[in-house]
């Protein structure tokens, strides 16, 4: 019985896959879109929506570290001074590249599913050659690990009352932890620490670097997991801090007075 010839299979979306190959790009694409829209709204409207609770107990991770120079106009959200770094880091991340190349560029939409573009030139040409800036963003992202841990630790200390714990402190801590896992699982960092070496055994320092490489590899093997969990938690934490700071919800905590 005659059916379609191979010539006919050279159309976009053509595949003989019988599974739901479109589900993954659909979920990934929607997830990323929700996050991008949410973080833009939250970041840009920062000045119109409290992002810090009183006494600085909880500060949204989108605004950490808080930089607010006097000369900037009122409408200028301090998040804009921060967010370029994580946005750049994630946009150029090897995992997110895979995710959005598949979900948005449909290049390819899924494995063995024909892509729509008539020609393809890869990451060697502008603008994709800029993905190489991932190394630069990785250096900046490393600075954010202590900064976010600092914010998390601060959230266990309320001025006037002392040490305690609230739901916000838990979220900020989990956020710092997941971001740490995401960052140490970075392919670029894994390479930077020892991946470029060929003879690890030569010196004790090289052996140590190799050891670190092995540890980072453990995180790296689940880079997608850390990418998503750290993305979700940072959004949830930001939303939570906004809600508490604008007194829409009350933070359950061990302190006696209002926070």
């Amino acid at each position, binding site marked *: *019985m*005659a*059916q*379609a*010839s*191979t*010539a006919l*299979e050279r159309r976009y979306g053509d*595949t*003989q*896959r*019988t*599974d739901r190959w479109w589900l993954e790009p659909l979920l990934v694409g929607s997830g990323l879109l929700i996050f991008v829209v949410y973080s833009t709204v939250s970041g840009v409207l920062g000045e119109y929506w409290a992002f810090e609770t009183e006494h600085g107990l909880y500060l949204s991770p989108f605004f950490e570290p808080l930089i607010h120079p006097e000369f900037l106009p009122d409408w200028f959200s301090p998040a804009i001074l921060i967010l370029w770094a994580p946005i750049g880091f994630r946009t150029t991340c*090897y995992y997110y*590249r*895979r995710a959005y*190349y*598949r979900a948005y560029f449909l*290049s*390819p939409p899924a*494995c*063995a*599913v*024909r*892509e729509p*573009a008539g*020609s*393809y*030139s*890869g*990451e*060697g040409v502008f603008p*994709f*050659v800029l993905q*190489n*800036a*991932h*190394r*630069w963003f990785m*250096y900046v992202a490393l600075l954010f690990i202590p900064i976010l841990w600092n914010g998390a630790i601060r959230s266990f200390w309320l001025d006037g009352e002392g040490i305690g714990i609230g739901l916000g402190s838990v979220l900020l801590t989990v956020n710092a932890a997941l971001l740490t896992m995401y960052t140490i699982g970075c*392919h*670029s960092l894994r*390479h*930077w620490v020892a*991946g*470029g070496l*060929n*003879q*690890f*055994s030569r010196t004790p320092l090289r*052996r140590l670097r*190799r050891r670190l490489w092995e540890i980072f590899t453990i995180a*790296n*093997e689940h880079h997608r997991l850390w990418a998503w969990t750290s993305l979700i938690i940072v959004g949830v934490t930001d939303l939570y801090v906004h809600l508490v700071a604008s007194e829409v919800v009350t933070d359950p905590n061990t302190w006696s007075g209002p926070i």
Partner: protein
Amino acid sequence: MPTAHLRVWRGTDDGEYVEYEVEYDEGMVVLDVVHRLQATQTPDLAVRWNCKAGKCGSCSAEINGKPRLQCMQRMELYPEGETITLAPLKTFPIIRDLVTNVAWNYDQARAMPELRLRPADADGNRRMAQIDIDRGQEFHKCIECYICQDVCHVIRDHPENMAGFAGPRFFVQLASIAMHPLDTNTRRATVDHGFGLDYCNITKCCTDVCPEGIHITDNAIIPLKERRVDEFHDPLRIIARKLTGRG
């Protein structure tokens, strides 16, 4: 005995899918069913195979649209009664039925740099520490089934790129040379040359299909890309090079 409904590509480029019903026994793999089809109904069906143990890399084909080894797909994976579509690897020129001409891959193999070992020690031996070679051992598992080459959209969807792209299987080989503790090839011959590495957008289909479970993207392609970043794009290294006047 269960019955398989097969839809098999017959002929060359302008061939067609032909449907067959084949009875099979429990525990069979797709290749067994193809052999039974060949033995009972279509003695002229072309299919390439050798080991039937997932080790020779000969029986690659596309099963329900996914590049696979026919000898490693158990029939239990496919619900009884559902049609199983069998096609040749679509990236390579078809010879007939399920057999393609994979010679392009041999051209890529020939273009790869050769391993150039450092001179031996005074006693005539070459020594490598385990810690220096265990990263590369994964690369040697490759059985050259070319399933990764077949699935790679760079050439599957854009055959014009075949001229400047070695493909994931050969990035694995390039990585094993570039990372070899005793190799003396220049960076120019391996990493700088790149063999079309920039075409890869690390969408990972090669890794998804590799029957040997080689982490092609994470352990070969991305590390090679990162070595290229070291060479051309790392701000700290660029500054260090300027300051020391090296490189």
